[in-house]
């Protein structure tokens, strides 16, 4: 095969394959659908080469020592000189003509040996281990192990249930010392707190004296731990992983929009883990985003619509809300927590009622340069691109307050936001009639003429647009509470009632309008949007002073304005 486009030809188990320079043999084999088992190798961390599970046979085309000419077989093909010992796949980078054998007797025997070694001091407590079912040691033991033990000695004893930090619990006996967590803390989180003490088989993972694993990314160590050594204190002993149904979602914490997987069983979410997206979050996510599922069953959850404070059927509440919104003097407070679809519907309402003002409430926090951006709204750019707003939101609704004071605004449609928290006074709220739509109760919902109980992001589908102007979709993991109503359906019905024309009320159907020609979303639909999202053209908003600074896969367009 000829070399082209700087690709390097390697041969894996007799199959030629072209790979980019720098590709290691674990990745190269994966391109052919072959799994080279490994523990310590992680695509987003440096190479440690310590587990020795990925040992393969390695050969290079021979060259005559005297003449430097390539050595050839009788049939004219290059003669491959095989190394006497096996080499690690993860630490072997592609070189022209390289040959590896991943399934030769030698390679298989090496794996069997490593598997045996890893098990001799392993407690084999799978029945009570949280990792069981998603444990690489368990999987490789069944696929590469001997199935019996030759070890009759006493096993090593190490600390159990060590609290490494507020969110991570360590069982040292299960640890295979792959050092992924150590490398993660050093290389990604930038918080070197983990290391090994003692030596040989007594090596023990631990925190540096006086330190704890408390950084904002500590739970990623649990995700990358190939065994059940590092466990999430929150998830520990809660649920067997094989019962969990996984749904792709997006982290709503910040405008980074880390890709996630939500694991649920029978209508209950048990955990949230990151999902790999090399353009957004690699394989990581911040810790706080993993606890967002607690919003679902929080004490202030709205589970029932109400009219004038009295419980009401959803249909009645929507009809009443539509009534409230007829007439003059209407302002709309949307939210950066809404999906693109909801913002699109809200914009339609704003146009229909000729709103006296459309607002979003800004949320800002500290930027950590990794996966927590300044903007704590996941979808401000969605509001911009749907035309709901045309400038960056502010943290306080002082402008709306002035309009209420002047009597220009008499009715407010508030979605998800608490107007009191956004700077309005109780006196101001008392002067207006309020329609509230949201999943949680707050000062505004309590004063609302109509309160519509909405859904959390885990109970509905939709899209959000992150800081890169990448539109990403999240899907429904569990159904919402019985008395609640899907936000998009509520908004669409109100719009239909107000305008007298039908309006699409599902995520699938609304994209026929959102994605119509001439819009920034032309050609897109919810169904065909890939799980890795799609970059949109955000150049129309280049002039806006977005506050996000540099982070993992994000470069701000202009010098970030320091938040006051």
């Amino acid at each position, binding site marked *: 095969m000829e070399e082209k486009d700087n690709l390097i030809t390697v041969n894996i188990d007799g199959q030629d394959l072209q790979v980019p320079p720098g590709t290691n043999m674990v990745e190269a084999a994966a391109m052919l659908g072959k799994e080279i088992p490994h523990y310590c190798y992680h695509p987003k961390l440096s*190479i*440690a*080469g*310590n*587990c*020795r*599970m990925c*040992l393969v046979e390695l050969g290079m085309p021979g060259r005559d020592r005297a003449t430097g000419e390539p050595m050839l077989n009788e049939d004219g093909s290059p003669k491959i000189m095989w190394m*006497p*010992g*096996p080499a*690690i796949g993860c*630490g*072997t*980078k592609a070189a022209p003509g390289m040959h590896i054998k991943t399934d030769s007797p030698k390679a298989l025997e*090496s794996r069997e*040996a*490593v598997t*045996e*070694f*890893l098990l*001799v*001091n392993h407690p084999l407590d799978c029945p009570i281990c949280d990792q069981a079912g998603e444990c690489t040691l368990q999987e490789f033991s069944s696929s590469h192990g001997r199935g019996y033990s*030759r*070890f*009759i*000695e*006493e096993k*090593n004893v190490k600390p159990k249930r060590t609290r490494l930090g507020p969110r991570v619990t360590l069982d040292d006996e299960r640890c*295979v*010392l792959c*050092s992924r967590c150590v490398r993660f803390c050093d290389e990604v989180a930038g918080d070197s707190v983990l*290391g*090994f003490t*003692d*030596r*040989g*088989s*007594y*090596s023990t993972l631990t925190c540096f004296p006086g330190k704890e694993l408390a950084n904002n990314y500590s739970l990623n160590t649990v995700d990358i731990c190939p065994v059940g050594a590092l466990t999430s204190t929150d998830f520990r002993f809660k649920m067997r992983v094989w019962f969990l149904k996984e749904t792709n979602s997006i982290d709503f914490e910040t405008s980074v929009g880390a890709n996630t997987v939500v694991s649920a069983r029978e209508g209950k979410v048990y955990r949230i883990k990151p999902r790999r997206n090399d353009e957004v979050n690699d394989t990581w996510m911040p810790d706080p985003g993993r606890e967002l599922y607690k919003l679902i069953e929080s004490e202030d959850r709205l589970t029932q619509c109400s009219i004038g404070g009295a419980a009401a059927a959803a249909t009645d509440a929507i009809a009443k809300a539509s009534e409230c919104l007829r007439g003059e003097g209407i302002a709309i407070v949307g939210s950066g927590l809404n999906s693109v679809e909801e913002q699109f519907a809200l914009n339609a309402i704003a146009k229909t009622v000729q709103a006296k003002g459309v607002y979003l409430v800004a949320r800002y926090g500290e930027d950590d340069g990794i996966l927590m951006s300044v903007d704590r709204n996941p979808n401000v750019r969605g509001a911009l691109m749907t035309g709901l707003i045309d400038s960056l939101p502010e943290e306080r609704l002082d402008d709306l307050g002035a309009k209420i004071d002047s009597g220009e605004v008499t009715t407010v449609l508030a979605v998800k936001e608490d107007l009191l928290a956004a700077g309005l006074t109780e006196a101001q709220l008392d002067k207006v009639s309020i329609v509230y739509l949201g999943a949680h109760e707050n000062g505004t919902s309590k004063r609302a003429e109509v309160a519509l109980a909405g859904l959390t992001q885990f109970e509905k589908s939709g899209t959000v647009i992150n800081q890169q102007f990448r539109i990403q979709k999240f899907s429904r993991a569990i159904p919402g509470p019985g008395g609640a109503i899907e936000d998009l359906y509520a908004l669409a019905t109100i719009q239909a009632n107000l305008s007298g024309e039908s309006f699409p009320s599902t995520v699938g159907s609304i994209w026929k309008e959102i994605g119509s020609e001439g819009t920034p979303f032309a050609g897109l639909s919810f169904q065909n949007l890939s799980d890795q999202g799609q970059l949109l053209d955000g150049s129309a908003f280049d002039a806006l002073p977005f506050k996000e600074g540099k982070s993992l896969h994000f470069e701000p367009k202009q010098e970030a304005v320091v938040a006051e």
Partner: protein
Amino acid sequence: MVVHPKEQRIILKHADEPGYTTDIDCYMKHGGYEMLKKAVGMDKQAICDEVKNSQLRGRGGAGFPAGVKWSFVDRKSGKPVYMVCNCDESEPGTFKDRQIVHKDPHQLIEGIMISCFATDCAKAFIYIREEMPKGAEILNQAINEAKEKNFVGDDILGSGYSCDIVVHRGAAAYICGEETGLIESLEGKRANPRIKPPYFPAALGLYMCPTIVNNVETLCNVKHILEMGADAFAKIGRPNNTGTRIWCVSGGVKRPGYYEVAGITVGELIYDICGGPKDGRSIKAIIPGGSSMKILKNGERYTGKDRDGNEYDWGIEDIPLDYDGIAAAGSMSGSGGMMVLDDSVEIPVALANLMAFYSHESCGQCTPCREGSLWLKKITTRMVHGEARPEDVDLMKSVADQIEGRTICAFGFAVAWPVQSYLEKFEDEFREFAQRHSRTGGDRTAAKELACNH
């Protein structure tokens, strides 16, 4: 002190002379630092060529040609080049570097400075074994003296070349002597050896800069190569095994100790120089180059063809005492620590002792060595505690085979080789031992109960 006539002392020439001290005046009275003075007036490449032509091989263990090692240094990176003197002499049975450091430190400093000048190193480090505190003191004192005389430091002897030597005390672990483990330790980290590729010291060594790591004895030899010329040096010993070597003999001989020799046989060292076995004893086996090397059994015949195609048929005493001779007998000269086991030694007990050492010294980084070495220790310990099983012999062999050649550094070999070679050469003794020390007669369940209670 009487030097045996079969010794040929070059490195240790003055070390044991009465009245010879470690201070610089004494060293200079004996012609010290003359070679450094000569070197700074020479072309750097010429010195490197001399070392290459002398065929000097590393004295630390692997026996790699020093001049070739120097030529691998990555000069294109633009980064500084570092010289690291490996003085972490920790291979059981080896105590030669200690003699040099304690008795003739300036010889080492001169060797280092000539080597640094020739390879244009920016800084030199002496990584000295933690257990040699006095050695570190002596070296620091000697370096200060050398600095006063401008042999070390800025603008050495007006040559415009500057280089400082830093003495760093080691982290008290066997693995700190492995060159990449040493580098990690020198950087202040745990001495976990690095994976190669990509971290070859010649390109990505200390602080990710090109680094030369040489043994103490190797660096001392550089001075003598310059003094006598590459050709004269190459005439000492056999071709490809040039120069003298300091052998450290311990165990069952009448006169254990360190002996600097060249061109003799194992028999001449053990019987002539060391006086043979103790009275009433006979030699059972020797471990030629430090505890990790394969054992050679007395009474065996070592046959084969040498590099020139000549057939040889040696008894243990006929083996030429150098790199190629011992390699031809199936072992390695290693660090020159020769252990003589006489007939009072029970081989399984010796192996248990070694496994206790190696399992304690495994860094724990990579799986086969970490788990395998402790497993072997547990088996051998159980055996000598009288709970052996007949199948233990095959099990140990299998575990050792599973370690060999699959680890990050050569420690895997150091664990596996003794087990493999002891079992190969003394299999009958192991089987007999297992039989004699079995309280359970091969009953698996009973053996397990015993194993869990010892």
